[in-house]
């Protein structure tokens, strides 16, 4: 039926998965995402599932790690029940919120639970997000010792007035220190940047880029600021207190970022992500965890509001930490809703996600209409001609800026 939403069902109380998820599971990489839904203060632009109270309707922040570990145990049982043979995890990612707001022992306990449950691949990538002002050297050292391999700092900008508009509380001068400590203890480092903040000039952005590049991180993410409905910033813009975001300026900023990053030795591998080129071409600094999302791998998302995907079934947990705690305490699955992807939805996602990844989409996997559309995309300089002739869709710089339009054109005739 055209236009109908994918089947979204309530998730069963025991979280049971259909046997279909086990098919071919041995050939898919396995990842774990652990959500930590706490922040000290909420930034004005942020709509992530995060909360600032120490205690939320009876759910204590200090009990959180124990609850998450309980979900990991449930996960193991549910997967075994569905016939999925245990797979060693390739990546683990702690995201937020601000995971580093928890005592480091909480993070290491949760990581240990995942390791005890599934085991880790020898080259496992273990990342945590961190706020520059929420960690010190000892904290980072403890992470490294517990098995973390990578830390992603929310730097956002180097310019005080931009950070102020974003309501970021950290001191940009602290970034070089945390980066240095992380490197020193042996962690890979990524920096998150946001561009196109109201009031931010192209020169401001250049300053932030230069500053980030000067830290010589292994990886940089640069996100165009999205004004999410319901956020404080959206309200400020609606009232006229803050200028709206300018798309053209954001485009200029993206072009500047791509040029500067390329010149500094960072190659894009996804629309908003750049990885440092290594002398050894065998080594990539791309985030393997995030690539897993885009390439359709399996992962379990632990924690309030976390999303999971296993073998064509997507589900998501209840959002509020108190609701989550109640479910876990009752021995129930925290799942709130799920959908079993129809083939047409799988195809849509395949194109949608992979088109954004460098060399992520091969023309052979497109349907006939999609393959026909490629010619027009080449003519409009949105996809790279040489790569396309070789069988791969690679967005040009212009194409990355218009990636959603490219996807719509590739899927123009695909059924929904």
């Amino acid at each position, binding site marked *: 039926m*055209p*236009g109908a*939403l*994918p089947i*979204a069902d309530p998730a069963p109380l025991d979280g049971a998965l259909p046997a279909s998820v086990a098919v071919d599971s041995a050939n898919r990489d396995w990842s774990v*995402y652990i959500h930590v839904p706490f922040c000290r203060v909420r930034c004005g632009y942020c709509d992530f599932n995060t909360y600032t109270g120490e205690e939320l309707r009876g759910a204590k922040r200090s009990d959180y790690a124990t609850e998450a570990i309980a979900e990991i145990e449930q996960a193991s049982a549910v997967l075994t029940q569905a016939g999925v043979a245990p797979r060693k995890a390739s990546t683990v990612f702690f*995201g937020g919120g601000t995971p580093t707001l928890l005592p480091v022992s909480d993070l290491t306990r949760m990581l240990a639970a995942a390791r005890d449950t599934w085991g880790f691949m020898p080259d496992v990538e273990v990342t945590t997000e961190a706020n520059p002002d929420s960690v010190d050297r000892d904290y980072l050292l403890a992470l490294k010792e517990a098995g973390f391999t990578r830390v992603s700092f929310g730097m956002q900008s180097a310019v005080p007035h931009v950070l102020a508009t974003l309501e970021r509380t950290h001191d940009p001068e602290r970034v070089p220190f945390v980066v240095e400590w992380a490197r020193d203890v042996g962690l890979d480092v990524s920096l998150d940047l946001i561009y196109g903040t109201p009031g931010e000039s192209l020169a401001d952005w250049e300053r932030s880029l230069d500053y980030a590049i000067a830290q010589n991180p292994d990886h940089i*993410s*640069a*996100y*165009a600021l*999205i004004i999410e409905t319901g956020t404080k910033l959206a309200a400020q813009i609606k009232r006229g207190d803050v200028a709206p975001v300018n*798309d*053209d300026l*954001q*485009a200029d900023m*993206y072009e500047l970022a791509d040029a500067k990053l390329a010149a500094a030795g960072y190659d894009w591998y996804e*629309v*908003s*992500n750049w990885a440092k080129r290594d002398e050894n071409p065998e080594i990539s600094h791309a985030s393997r965890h*995030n690539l897993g*999302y885009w390439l359709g791998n399996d*992962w379990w*998302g632990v924690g309030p509001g*976390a*999303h*999971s*995907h296993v073998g064509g079934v*997507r589900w*998501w947990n209840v959002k509020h930490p108190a609701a989550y705690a109640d479910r876990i305490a009752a021995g129930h699955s925290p799942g709130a809703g799920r*959908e079993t992807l129809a083939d047409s*939805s799988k195809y*849509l*996602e395949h194109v*949608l*996600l992979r088109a954004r990844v460098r060399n992520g989409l091969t023309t052979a996997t497109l349907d006939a209409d999609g393959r026909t559309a490629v010619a027009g995309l080449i003519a*409009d300089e*949105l996809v790279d001609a040489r790569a396309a002739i070789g069988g791969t869709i690679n967005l040009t710089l212009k194409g*990355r*800026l*218009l*990636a*959603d*339009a490219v*996807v*719509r054109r590739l*899927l*123009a005739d695909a059924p*929904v």
Partner: protein
Amino acid sequence: MSPRASYTLEPASTDPAFIRNFCIIAHIDHGKSTLADRMLSVTGVVSDRDMRAQYLDRMDIERERGITIKSQAVRMPWALTDENGKEQSYALNMIDTPGHVDFTYEVSRSLAACEGAILLVDAAQGIEAQTLANLYLAMENDLTIIPVLNKIDLPAADPDKYAEEIAGLIGCDPASVLRVSGKTGVGVPELLDEATRLIPAPVGDADAPARAMIFDSVYDAYRGVITYVRMIDGKLSPREKVMMMSTKSAHELLEIGVSAPEPTPTKGLGVGEVGYLITGVKDVRLSKVGDTVTNFAKPSSVPLQGYSEPKPMVFSGLYPIDGSDYPVLREALDKLKLSDAALVYEPETSVALGFGFRCGFLGLLHLEIVRERLEREFNLDMIATAPSVIYEVMGDDKKFTTVTNPSEFPGGKIASVSEPMVKASILTPKDFVGTVMELCQSRRGTMQGMEYVGTDRVELHYTMPLGEIVFDFFDHLKSRTQGYASLDYEPSGDQEADLVKVDILLQGEAVDAFSAIVHRDKAYAYGVLMTERLKNLIPRQQFEVPIQAAIGARIIARESIRAMRKDVLAKCYGGDISRKRKLLEKQKEGKKRMKMVGRVEVPQSAFIAALSGEVEAGKEKK
């Protein structure tokens, strides 16, 4: 006051001497239908329990808008008592008519079925443009006029003043102008007495072959076509075979009767009577308004003089928003046509809007009503192109082209263009005469004269291009006179003018829906208006899009939509892929509603907004 009739005259055997046929005519909203309600109550044909306001306005759209669109005839009993106390019953046939100028043809048909007309005037408003127009029509038909002031219950009513006004107009004694309230019923029995006394009885030859004038023909889903007739001569009876004189087609009378006001079968209809016929035909075109019905066995050889068919004056393209609704639209128009003979249409295609129909209407209200009925009764979502009139274009080769759609305007050299003109009468309080004259002049009007109506109002006469009137003239007239002015117009031939076609081009391609035929002096203004509108409405594309206005090959205005440079959601959604996919699915749905002009994707909503002028209206509100 007369009592209700204690006995009722049988249809088919009523002596014409005791029949009175009249209609109620007035300006829009002066209370015709409400007065008709009171007549239905007072005569007892509708009980108080069944009564509801504007009883005869039966269509949903009439009830919602509170206006009459179709005339309705009702037979009612009434009695007069003479000096000796002797009661005589009468049969009154009353026709409630519409007041809006678009439906003047309904009024003229009704008049032809009557010997008298109640000229109703709102006692708080006085004579208006449509009062004058309808009075004129009634006099043309030699009807006996009974002037009546209505709404005397209103605190603002000034019956003395307006009685003078009416007396001045028709040359009667102000004291003879009756005063009623359709709301409270006061004066209504007296009015019926007076109408019975003054209106002449119909005359006809009872022994001659039947001749009945068809004055209305409506399609009913259950009963087929219902034909409303006024008997002139002879008699029609149930089950007999009748013949339509123009087509010579014969039908059996399955039912014959009178509206009282529900259809009530009778033993027939005789001289002077008004009633309905049902023959089982399914197509109103087989039972044409203006045709004469006669007996098949002993037919008359002299048809009655018919009516001139109403001619469409305003044209507009109707397009389903969802292209797959096209067959539904076709069927819907075919159905509406059954009960609305004035509606004409033919298929048309538009680059911008797809498949649709070019439709002809009597005026803007007619257009609006048809459109609303299509949307409501057939569940269609539609766009209507800007209304246009009929132009006669002569090329250099002396060849004439009739243009009802600007896109049919011939290319190449044009020798002359002529456009339909109207005689417009505008009635306005005298303080607004200046602004009304300014407005008419700006719409290329030529003043033909003006005269006082009463002491404080003026009637202005203009000839004006109809094309200027259909383009929001009435809204401007109302807003410049605080709502006081009223307008009436009638066709008055064609006239040459310096008219040009302005095309609007998107990336060099003409968007047919926006082409317009305008006076040369206004071409630039139109070009600027439309290019700016579109610039604000069409979303940025992956390339720059020039928007131009052109007369032939000459560009008179231009704008451009800069290329969109960014169309990508940058944020990592973590694992919430479902949200991203649903967003894409929504965008894909949205794309279905996009129309392609060349390579330019234009949302349907942009066309709708540009056609309706919502852009500027929205700005003013801010």
